[in-house]
């Protein structure tokens, strides 16, 4: 067990990282991600407010649908990455990273009270504060992610809802062995699967039911290797207060509509870009290692790296000088003083 943002969490269960990782790629695994924070944003201005506060476009959501988004600061960087779930036009559940719940809440409350000056930043509409209320519901929810190609089948056997009707990024409120559960077809592994929001007191029973349904318990280490194979960012590593999302593979999140902090993001230039790298050999490129050009000059830094348990290739996400960011560019990662050659490769790394 390790301390993770104040939560005691398992790095791995006794069967080990490799077994857990492959269970998610080939069958189904589950992660206790109750450390994730939940904020309720409720009020008549919920849609215009979240549209102003975040970089994706929550106005595109209908009831019962979720959306990945980014929360920008005013310096061209980020405060967190989030998932928004729309329960109703005036009621959203926002999932934030454990360590960021307090700053995200503070920021949202501040933005709500500031409002948008009419016409500022090209924003439409009303001056004055947004009519929304932000409430921290982190203690009201436990969260268990069930991920893998058989997740829907194994989970489907123990819940009342017909999961085939729940498409990606949608959620449904149902019951599991009589316990209320919200199932969102979302995840952080690059596989099909669900995130199950349950009452904290029910979490041990839900876990037990899932164990009996043949879902393999997985720890933090497998969660990290899976998200890295899928090319997903981890806040604090790929995404930080200084990260301009337009210089990353997650630029798609930034939508063309007025948003707080968007001017700074649009004004920023990408001297470096976040790319995927696959090495020729198998030393592990770890966070902080230097990226080298073919002449040995330092042109970047690894943000996350591992040996892919699926493909047995060494993979990394890294910032590199923009001139070396094109797919197929040859470069190297400095591992213990030696260049380990590799190629810029667009994630995901686990699909052919």
């Amino acid at each position, binding site marked *: 067990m390790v301390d993770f943002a104040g939560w005691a969490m398992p790095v791995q269960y006794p069967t080990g*990282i490799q077994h857990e990782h492959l269970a998610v790629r080939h069958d189904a695994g589950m992660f206790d991600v109750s450390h994730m924070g939940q904020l309720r944003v409720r009020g008549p201005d919920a849609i215009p407010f979240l549209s102003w506060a975040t970089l994706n476009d929550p106005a595109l959501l209908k009831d019962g649908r979720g959306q990945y988004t980014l929360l920008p600061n005013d310096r061209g960087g980020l405060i967190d990455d989030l998932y928004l779930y729309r329960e109703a036009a005036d009621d959203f559940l926002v999932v934030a990273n454990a360590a960021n719940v307090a700053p995200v809440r503070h920021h949202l409350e501040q933005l709500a009270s500031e409002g948008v000056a009419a016409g500022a930043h090209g924003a439409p509409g009303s001056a004055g504060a947004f009519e929304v209320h932000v409430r921290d519901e982190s203690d009201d929810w436990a969260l268990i992610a069930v991920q893998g190609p058989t997740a829907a089948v194994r989970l489907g056997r123990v819940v009342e809802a017909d999961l085939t009707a729940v498409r990606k990024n949608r959620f449904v409120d149902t019951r599991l062995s009589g316990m209320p559960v919200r199932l969102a077809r979302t995840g952080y592994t690059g596989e099909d699967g669900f995130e199950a929001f349950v009452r904290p007191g029910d979490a041990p029973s839900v876990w037990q039911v899932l164990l009996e349904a043949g879902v393999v318990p997985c720890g933090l280490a497998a969660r990290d290797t899976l998200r890295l194979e899928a090319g997903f960012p981890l806040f604090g590593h790929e995404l930080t207060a200084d990260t301009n999302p337009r210089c990353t593979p997650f630029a798609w999140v930034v939508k063309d509509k007025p948003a707080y902090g968007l001017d700074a993001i649009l004004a920023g230039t990408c001297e470096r870009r976040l790319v995927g790298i696959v090495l020729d050999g198998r030393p*592990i490129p770890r966070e902080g290692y230097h990226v080298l050009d073919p002449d040995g000059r330092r042109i970047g830094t690894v943000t996350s790296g591992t*040996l892919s348990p699926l493909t047995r290739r060494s993979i990394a996400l890294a910032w590199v000088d923009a001139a070396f960011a094109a797919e197929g560019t040859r470069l190297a990662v400095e591992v213990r003083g030696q260049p380990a050659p590799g190629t810029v490769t667009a994630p995901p790394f686990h699909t052919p």
Partner: protein
Amino acid sequence: MNIPATLRYTRSHEWATEPDADGLVTVGISDFAQDQLGDVVFVELPEVGRALAAGDAAAVVESVKTASDIYAPVAGEVVAVNDALVDAPEAINTEPYGAGWLFRLRVADAADWSALLDAARYQAVAEEG
């Protein structure tokens, strides 16, 4: 925890066989060490012919969790390395005292080996973590 009595050990969890008549010593990492590391996925071995002092970083064993330097338990010249580990590093997990050996040294002074930890003393070290 498997700690064969015929071997000697270091506080950094390497094991070494008793020098044979030619002064050859085989080196690997202990069962305790492989268990702590978890699944080993990569091994970097020393060059044959390299002269090592006791305590020199000689090899690297990487698991998903971490990269660990492996130190020469005694002074000597590298005369062989276990190339099979390049393609099958998991042998370190499955057979830490057998197929998972790392490299072989020709030692200058056999007495160096006798000064390493015996199984009982190493067990005490491992139990401390």
